[in-house]
């Protein structure tokens, strides 16, 4: 492991009360990495949305199923992986919440918020089922 790299892993069962545990890890990690309160807050919000989806849509609130979160801090770059034991989905079919016909919908903004607060949001689906969400964020703009 490089001196400036760091990996934190946390596993929770599928209860909404546990979302906060993962969010708080994200915020503390960002603060330790020198990010300001606001920056840390928005990354924490993206994590909250990702974990909420894993619990609700992925594991369908089955408390026997786990959500696995990994934080990789390497230099100035933070990669967050959130995996569940659900059945996956087709990200191509997720509708755009900014589309006027979706504006007044009561759901469908979680992934949009993640994309807004993070630099990159990617989904991978594993053979055994389950969704693996990876979000990355450059903590300070690289200058080169």
């Amino acid at each position: 492991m490089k001196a400036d790299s760091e990996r934190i892993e946390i596993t929770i069962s599928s209860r909404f009360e546990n979302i906060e545990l993962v969010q708080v890890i994200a915020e503390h990690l960002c603060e330790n990495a020198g990010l300001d309160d606001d920056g840390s807050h928005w990354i924490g919000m993206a994590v909250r949305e990702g974990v909420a989806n894993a619990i609700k849509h992925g594991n369908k609130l089955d408390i026997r199923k786990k959500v696995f979160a990994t934080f990789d801090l390497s230099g100035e770059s933070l990669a967050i992986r959130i995996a569940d034991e659900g059945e996956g989905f087709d990200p191509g079919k997720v509708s755009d919440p900014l589309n006027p016909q979706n504006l007044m919908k009561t759901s469908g903004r979680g992934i949009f918020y993640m994309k807004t607060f993070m630099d990159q949001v990617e989904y991978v689906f594993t053979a055994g089922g389950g969704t693996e969400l990876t979000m990355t964020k450059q903590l300070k703009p690289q200058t080169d």
Partner: protein
Amino acid sequence: MKVSARNVDGVEIIILQGKITIGAGDSQLREVITDSLSNDKQNILLDMQGVTTLDSSGIGELVGAYTTVTNRGGKLKLLHLPPKVTDLLQVTQLITVFEVYEDESEAIKSF
């Protein structure tokens, strides 16, 4: 979430405090709106000053509340938005949907 309410000049001011997030406070918001409507209080001002965390579910509940109240011929407006809540409404373009006030008496007069 903690909820309290008072009525000023026929406007039901509902004060929301704490979290409106998935599994915490989202269904509570729905209930308080339903209660208010069933008591024929259809002009509702949500005071958001004390809201500490709002996620996409909470935002969804706000939109749902707006629709419910409007469909019943009432009005739902927002008061004292914390800056981060404003941001959440802005990026989703919902800020154009809600009437937002900084000053309570101004908000009440507007109904």
